């Protein structure tokens, strides 16, 4: 069955069973489930009525046993420690050593730090993966069809929806935390490997049957105000290290000096300034990639010229936006993830820099997330096609190596979604006829800025009028694609086997696309 972005969704994907019995549907276009009702799932939690001093256990193994982890269960993790994370590998090693099998990992995201999981997939111990990001060896083995069930890939908001709706049920959540008290009140500041916020883990703490907090810094009770509340936590384990602090928080990304990136960033800022939403009190999110980050720098003089300020910025937070706020040009920063030490330092001391949950950030199934009120979002892409569909998950070889993250959530929510990407990367045409995998549907993407010109989604007549009025040149996206192909040649279609190895969920839980097992290339 073809979905509304023209992707054939095979019966085997639509037949994948969700925990709550909900049936998968193909993607129907943006806003499809708006106004419908869901019954939230609830966890089965243990009563702790008798007074007790502590929830401390001496090891992760003890916690795995105490939580009754057994064959067929789903365990969850968060990705605030990014590539410095030790938690996933430490916990999975104990589960595997205890001989437990048929495990599904439901993480907010997974990365290169989790290469050891690839081996558990190949051995058939890990049989399910639900995540936003999938990369490295894990992406490779899944793309080669080694995972028993299709991986389910969701946006950050889509994951919260899936947990709350009961599409996935978390049996045990293992939540790494920079600090915790003995009752499980956990914070992201004050420890050895601070990550700033614990936004993605909140839904796990609220919806998992059992919750374990793992920390390397125990602090006196009560560790307040907590990100993860002790009332939701069964056990606390102290380990030597939760992660590598150098990789948990990297130094601030340097502002790009690449003239191509700077030109695209400057053009993006001009486009933003030409739209009707660029007025006092506007809201903004940008990614941490080179050209997206540089937009901050070019936006500032345009704000000054018009005498306006930004009311709030959200998202993955970087030092760049914190700096803009220190200059008095941003009202509030509402933070779901910190990308650098500058952002973490800022949330420690700045009373106008707040932590929010992933649900508040981007969940399409609550009563209105921040993304719904967002004016502008600037995003990157691996590929964009002539229908404005974006791919951020599969490489040009068809292997899984990315993450939708908040891309589809902010793109649907924001009044103006701008994708910034060079026309070509090496020999790869970024603007192409058909993206390998649709991760953000074209009906949510408004403007594409490249180094060879800008294209506006023809559905957005209002933006076209605004750019025309400002004298900003734009071309049909087909022209950009043809220009790209004239430089690098027309790419051959990738070759696939039949097996579906991953399902790309739209944020509302319909199926946007599937990824199939890759076929070794034969010339």
């Amino acid at each position, binding site marked *: 069955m073809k979905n509304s972005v023209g992707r054939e969704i095979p019966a085997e994907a639509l037949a994948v069973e969700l925990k709550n019995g909900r049936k998968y549907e193909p993607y129907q276009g943006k806003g499809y489930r708006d106004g419908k009702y869901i019954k939230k799932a609830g966890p089965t939690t243990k009563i702790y009525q008798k007074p007790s001093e502590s929830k401390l256990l001496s090891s992760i193994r003890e916690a795995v046993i105490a939580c009754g982890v057994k064959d067929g269960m789903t365990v969850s993790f968060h990705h605030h420690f990014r590539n410095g994370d030790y938690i996933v590998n430490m916990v999975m090693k104990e589960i595997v050593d205890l001989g437990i099998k048929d495990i599904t990992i439901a993480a907010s995201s997974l990365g290169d730090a989790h290469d050891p999981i690839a081996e558990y997939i190949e051995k058939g111990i890990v049989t399910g993966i639900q995540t936003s990001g999938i990369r490295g060896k894990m992406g490779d083995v899944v793309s080669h069809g080694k995972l028993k069930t299709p991986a389910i890939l969701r946006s950050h908001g889509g994951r919260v929806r899936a947990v709350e709706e009961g599409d996935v049920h978390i049996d045990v959540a293992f939540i790494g935390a920079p600090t915790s008290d003995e009752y499980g009140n956990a914070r992201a500041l004050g420890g050895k490997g601070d990550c700033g916020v614990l936004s993605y883990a909140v839904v796990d703490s609220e919806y998992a049957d059992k919750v374990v907090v793992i920390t390397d810094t125990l602090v006196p009770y009560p560790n307040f105000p907590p990100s993860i509340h002790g009332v939701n936590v069964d056990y606390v384990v102290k380990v030597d290290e939760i992660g590598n602090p150098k990789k948990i928080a990297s130094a601030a990304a340097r502002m790009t000096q690449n003239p191509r990136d700077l030109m695209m960033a400057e053009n993006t800022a001009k486009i933003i300034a030409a739209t009707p939403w660029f007025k006092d009190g506007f809201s903004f999110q940008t990614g941490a990639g080179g050209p997206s980050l540089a937009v901050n720098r070019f936006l500032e003089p345009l704000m000054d010229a018009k005498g306006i300020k930004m009311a709030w910025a959200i998202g993955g937070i970087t030092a760049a936006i914190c700096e803009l706020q220190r200059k008095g040009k941003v009202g509030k920063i509402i933070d779901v993830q910190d990308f650098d030490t500058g952002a973490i330092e800022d949330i420690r001391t700045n009373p106008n820099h707040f932590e929010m949950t992933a649900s508040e950030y981007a969940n399409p199934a609550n009563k209105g997330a921040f993304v719904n009120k967002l004016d502008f979002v600037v995003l990157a892409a691996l590929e964009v096609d002539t229908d404005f569909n974006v791919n951020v998950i599969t490489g*040009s*070889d*068809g292997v899984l190596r990315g993450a939708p993250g908040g891309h589809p959530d902010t793109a649907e929510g924001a009044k103006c979604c701008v994708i910034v990407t060079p026309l070509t990367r*090496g*020999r*790869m045409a970024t603007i192409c006829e058909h993206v390998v995998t649709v991760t953000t549907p074209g009906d949510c993407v408004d403007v594409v800025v490249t180094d060879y010109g800008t294209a506006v989604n023809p559905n957005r007549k209002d933006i076209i009028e605004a750019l025309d009025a400002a004298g900003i040149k734009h071309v049909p996206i087909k022209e950009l694609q043809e220009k790209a192909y004239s*430089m*690098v*040649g027309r*790419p*051959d279609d*990738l*070759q696939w086997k039949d097996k579906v190895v991953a399902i790309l969920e739209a944020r509302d839980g319909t199926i946007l696309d599937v990824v199939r097992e*890759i076929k070794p*290339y034969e*010339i």
Partner: protein
Amino acid sequence: MELKAVGTAGTLESSDVMVTLEPRTSGGIDLTLESSVINQYGRQIKAEVLASLERLGVKNAKVIVNDHGALDCTIKARVECAFYRGCQCDMDGRFDWGGVIR
């Protein structure tokens, strides 16, 4: 003009291709192709290399192509350069500009 020794041209930088031609007396062209973009451009890279060799009159050779996303014009230039180096005629400057080099 013919291949006398091993001729190499290009680098392993991105957007470049390293081409090595090794002479042999028979057996035709034995092509080994590696590319970072093999799934989408492998067929075109192979065609470009074989067409260049044919134009240069190379009938028998072991050919190793290690590509990192080079455009067709780069591939062509690297094959020609590897050939001329293998012919050891880069000392006296007898390049066939506008002939087989184009």
